[in-house]
């Protein structure tokens, strides 16, 4: 912004000249930097919009009658917005509200159960010494490598025997006790100094008081990170419901989304996309509110 030289008291022309060129260089530098900023920025933004194009299509189609979904050329902004797609999906014959409720219930119980069991166990693995701890830990390490898909068949059989098949408990129970959550919490508690416990112990606190009053409050950021991760996994899970649920009343959202077909059995684009948009909103809200914690949770679980 200062291309012109400010008047100075220095009379030496040489000095003035060098200042002029310095100022000019500065300005050039700034301009070049701004150019470079946008030189990278504009292509990146175009790419980002391309990445989001499927979502734009989703929203656009959710506001159209089915017959207009595939007009050529694509009409991004519908002639009149068909909000009835949304009212039908929410309150119509095949309302997804029950499925929405199921998803909320499963996610909440999974998060609560996971937090309760994983913080306790993670703390014990990190900070308490007891006989057999290492053996149990090795068993945990080994099971952490087992893919969930391998366990679907035996879980299916046991759930059928126990009467849990086709009930939400088939999703909730396995999700409450996870090895990964325990590892994440253990990793956090290991990084905490042991002196806290020592001091509290000298003050006569018992182990539960030490855990609840000394360590747990410090762990809140990690706990909320784990809560977010668990919520997202639970909300998006499609494979377990596909295997363990069979009657529409028990469907969670991802499974219920597959219901929106027309008379011929083909997908009905308008209401299907309206339902898809609704299924995404909670995740998007969680993501936008907790973005920093969310990113931290993702990277933390990656670099464990």
């Amino acid at each position, binding site marked *: 912004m200062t291309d012109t030289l400010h008047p100075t008291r220095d009379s030496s022309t040489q000095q003035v000249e060098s200042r002029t060129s310095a100022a000019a260089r500065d300005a050039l530098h700034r301009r070049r*930097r701004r150019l470079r*900023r*946008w030189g*990278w920025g504009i292509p990146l*933004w175009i790419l*980002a*919009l391309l*990445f*989001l194009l*499927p979502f734009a*299509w*989703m929203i656009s*189609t959710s506001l159209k009658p089915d017959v207009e979904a*595939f007009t*050529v*050329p694509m009409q991004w902004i519908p002639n009149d917005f068909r909000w009835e797609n949304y009212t039908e999906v929410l309150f119509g014959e095949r309302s997804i509200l029950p499925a929405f409720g199921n998803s909320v219930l499963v996610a909440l119980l999974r998060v609560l159960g996971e937090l309760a069991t994983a913080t*306790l*166990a993670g*703390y*014990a693995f990190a*900070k*308490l*010494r*007891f006989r057999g701890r290492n053996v*149990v830990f090795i068993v*945990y390490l080994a*099971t952490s490598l*087992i893919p969930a*898909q*391998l366990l*679907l*068949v*035996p879980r299916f*059989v046991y759930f059928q025997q126990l009467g849990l098949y086709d009930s939400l408990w088939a999703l909730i*129970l*396995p999700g409450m*006790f996870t*090895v990964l959550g*325990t590892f994440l919490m253990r990793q956090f508690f290991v990084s*905490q*100094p*042991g*002196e806290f416990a020592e001091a509290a112990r000298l003050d006569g606190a018992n*182990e539960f008081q030490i*855990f609840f009053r000394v360590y747990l409050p410090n762990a809140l950021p990690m706990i909320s990170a784990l809560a977010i991760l668990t919520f997202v996994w639970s909300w*998006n899970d*499609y494979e377990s419901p*596909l*295997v363990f649920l069979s009657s529409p009343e028990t469907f969670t959202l991802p*499974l219920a*989304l*597959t219901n929106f077909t027309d008379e011929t059995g083909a997908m009905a684009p308008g209401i299907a*996309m309206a339902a*898809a948009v609704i*299924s*995404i909103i909670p995740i*998007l809200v969680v993501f*936008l509110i907790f973005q920093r914690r969310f990113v931290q949770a*993702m*990277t933390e679980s990656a670099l464990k």
Partner: protein
Amino acid sequence: MTTATTTPPASGPSTANRTRRTGRAPSDPKPLVGWLFIAPNLLGVLLFTFVPLVSVVLLSFTKWNLVSGLEGIEFVGIDNFLFVLQDPKFWRSLLITVVYAGVAVPLTLVVGLLLATALNRDVPGRALLRACFFIPYIVNVVAIGMTWMMLLDPSAGLLNQFLGNFGAESLPGWFASSRWALPALILVTIWAQAGYACLIYLSALQDAPEQLYEAARIDGAGRWRMFRAITWPSLLPTSVFLLITLFVGISQSFGMIALITNGGPGSSTTTLSFYMYQTSFQFYRFGYASAVGLVTFLGIFALMLVMWRLQRGRALHD
């Protein structure tokens, strides 16, 4: 451990070191307390993970179709495993898995790394950009799958409309053609996963050694050289981590395939994980499916070990 309780923590350097290193309190609580703390989690893990794991191993030695009931379980020794090795469908699924993961994973890494290096610069609206690329990763597979099915519709889909503008003569049939279904799946997978790779790379890039760049700049190193000599080696552990997790994740998911193509057309998108899903929950051959699952798992596990070893060897050399 008794030394820690009898001597004051600050008395000797060795004790102090040990306490600091393990981060543990120097005195032992009652052993029962530890078990009480892990009991809820341990019981759940035993019941819902460990018991099923043992069961799947046992099941893999049996012939059992769910329809015949629990009495119908028949012990067949290693027959299932022998049959896996002779099963043309298994080998075909293996090939499809190798192609699917072998193309999708490296491309996801490349796209993620490119995005991360671009985002690591001073660009306007960085946080928002990062969010844009990441959002596909956190959206459920059904919403994504349904949308892409329509975007990739052979006649009326947006992509083929776009390609048609360029006067392309025969447009790809995507999910409707046995030739293009796998490429379409790869495309959607990269789109959905690249944001995750980008996020992880970005956090690794931010930890990159700044002094080294400074030194290299003074030595007059060019940008490509700096990337090869500094950035890439410092990203290697991250790359291997992403390679392993993405490979495991991609080779084990069957949700998208079950939703969009159901393994077809023909068997062009029947990956191993989908083959296992099909054998167990569409044909109910639980014994054989368990064997397929175990063989797959052991194969992936061996591959993971190899990749991890390679990385460790490389890291030591540099």
